């Protein structure tokens, strides 16, 4: 039992590491998770993550003491960047862990009842949400609500579930006519059993792949909302709002924009590569 589990793990790793660049992705993701978990325990100036003022060191260029420079009120940019990772990652995980099950339920109910009114209503509803450019809908929702991190997560979730509904719909509407599903129906198996025990396992690998591939996009979306002022509010750090602050002081204080920008790029790059690796591993190469 123990041996076969090890064997599966080993085989998965072999498949994952087929492409060396996805291993780099795993390393980046692991690094960010590590930094996010430690957060204020690892940064050089933990108190700078909150509301801290040190005008003597304000607007300082990168130096030995502050490798990424300091902001307008003297806070260490490196500490604030690292301090923002926890919320950034948390946001991605929460958004995906809420929108994927909602989308799955909608898609599976519609797909299982393909051709019936339930299918039409649910999938047209999905189409309506997909008919607005995602960022526009998220901006509109986030603007109507109080600007904070919870509401920006809500806004992204509202626009994210339809993609999972599409995915689950595709799988379940084709499985519907499979013999083992028809057999289950004939023997009087209840609907929840069919959905969770027969259909869900067939969706799981493509859902998981999509979730890891989407992580980078959710992070981008969150950073974009935060850039627009609709995410985490001051004094807490967020990569998007740090950039939008810094833009006002370009080009003299370039470090205020360039370093958070690099952090976003590396973070998203890591998750995209990681997602590619998971997709290779589970054999659900879609693109």
């Amino acid at each position, binding site marked *: 039992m123990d041996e076969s589990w090890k064997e599966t793990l080993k085989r998965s790793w072999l498949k994952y590491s087929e492409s060396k*660049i996805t291993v780099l992705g795993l390393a980046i993701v692991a690094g960010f998770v590590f930094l996010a978990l430690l957060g204020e325990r690892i940064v050089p100036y933990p108190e700078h993550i909150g509301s801290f003022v040190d005008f003597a060191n304000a607007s300082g260029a990168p130096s030995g003491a502050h490798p990424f420079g300091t902001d307008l009120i003297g806070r260490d940019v490196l500490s604030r960047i690292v301090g923002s990772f926890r919320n950034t990652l948390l946001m991605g995980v929460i958004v995906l862990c809420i929108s994927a099950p909602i989308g799955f339920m909608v898609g599976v109910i519609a797909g299982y009842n393909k051709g019936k009114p339930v299918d039409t209503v649910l999938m*047209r*509803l999905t*189409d*309506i*949400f997909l*008919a*607005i*450019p*995602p*960022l*526009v*809908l998220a*901006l*509109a*929702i986030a*603007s*109507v609500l109080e600007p904070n991190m919870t509401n920006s997560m809500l806004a992204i979730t509202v626009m994210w579930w339809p993609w999972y509904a599409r995915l689950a719909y595709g799988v379940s509407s084709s499985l519907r006519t499979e013999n083992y599903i028809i057999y289950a129906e004939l023997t009087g198996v209840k609907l929840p059993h069919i959905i969770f025990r027969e259909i869900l396992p067939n969706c799981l690998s493509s859902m998981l792949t999509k979730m890891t591939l989407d992580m*980078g996009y959710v992070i*981008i979306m969150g*950073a*974009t909302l935060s*850039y*627009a*002022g609709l995410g985490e509010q001051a004094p807490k750090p967020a990569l*998007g709002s740090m*950039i939008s602050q810094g*833009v006002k002081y*370009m*080009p003299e204080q*370039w470090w205020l*924009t*360039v370093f958070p*920008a690099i952090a*976003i*790029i*590396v973070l*998203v*790059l890591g998750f*995209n*590569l990681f997602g590619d690796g998971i997709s290779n591993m589970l054999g659900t190469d879609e*693109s």
Partner: protein
Amino acid sequence: MPSLLVTILKRLGWASVVLVGLSILIFSLVRIIPGDPARLALGPTAPEEVVERYRERMHYNESLPVQYYFWLRDVLRGDFGLSTVTKRGVSQDLGEFMPATLELVIWAGIPPIFFALLLGVLGAMYKNRWPDYLIRFSSYIIIATPTFVWAVLFLLIFGYWLPILPSIGGRLSMGFTVPPVTGLMVLDALISGQPDAAWDAFAHLLLPSLALSLGHTMQEARLTRSYMLENGGKDYITMVTSQGVPRDVVNRKFLLRPSVIPTVSIMGLDIAAIFGNAFLVETIFNWPGMSRYAMNAILGKDINAVCGVVMVLGVIFIMTNLLVDVIVMILDPRMRQSRSK
């Protein structure tokens, strides 16, 4: 092609259903906002009887379905109400700001497709050799960069460090006057016979449209490459190759078309994303378009303006997708059959 026509009509029917749903969604979004919409529109200093009269006129005292009816009736007439920020009709504002955004989205959406196809084909032709590695490596980094970060970095690099391109200051430099015909500045300048003005307008467009399109271009290139490789391994390609058809003819006649179709079919989504990202890019480059207008409306809680913009974008998006589907059906005979079933 009667089946094509039927399919298009059917899709148009569904599109209108989706639009009605969208309007309900937008309307609900507007009405769940806490606070009195009449008070919000007129400001805290307006006397109570004026607010009451406004409430009466806007039917805010009626039940929600009745309010929706009146709202939809006005929207169908092209009346989205007054903007609380500009104090003008939202439709008038949209008419003024729309062309700038359309021009930006057209430049960001259409020419890059050709670069994407080119890069994708190159990548597939030179698989696992240095051009392929170069394209793949750069595509990873380019895709990972959010659009607003591109815009900010371009502004920093080409606006401040190497100021070779105009980066702030709208669509045209001072000193040029172009009479509006189509609303698209480059085209209008050419129509009025001013090539230097057209060049200037193009220079203004370059950075924002590049920022908007880079990520999508590389994504489309990746998609094209992987479909080229996938289709390249299929039996019919092996067959025509073994019959002695030259390699470049095989590529051009048998491989490119089926490999381009998936790229074309995601274009509708890409255009939508470009419209969405234009919100921030227009703000960063101070581009006088609809998205900058909408961004100000969103931050200023200008509800009528937000609704107007979202509805217009919804219509554009649905129409673009319909158009893309038609193009795909023309390119791919298989799609025509499966849809008409």
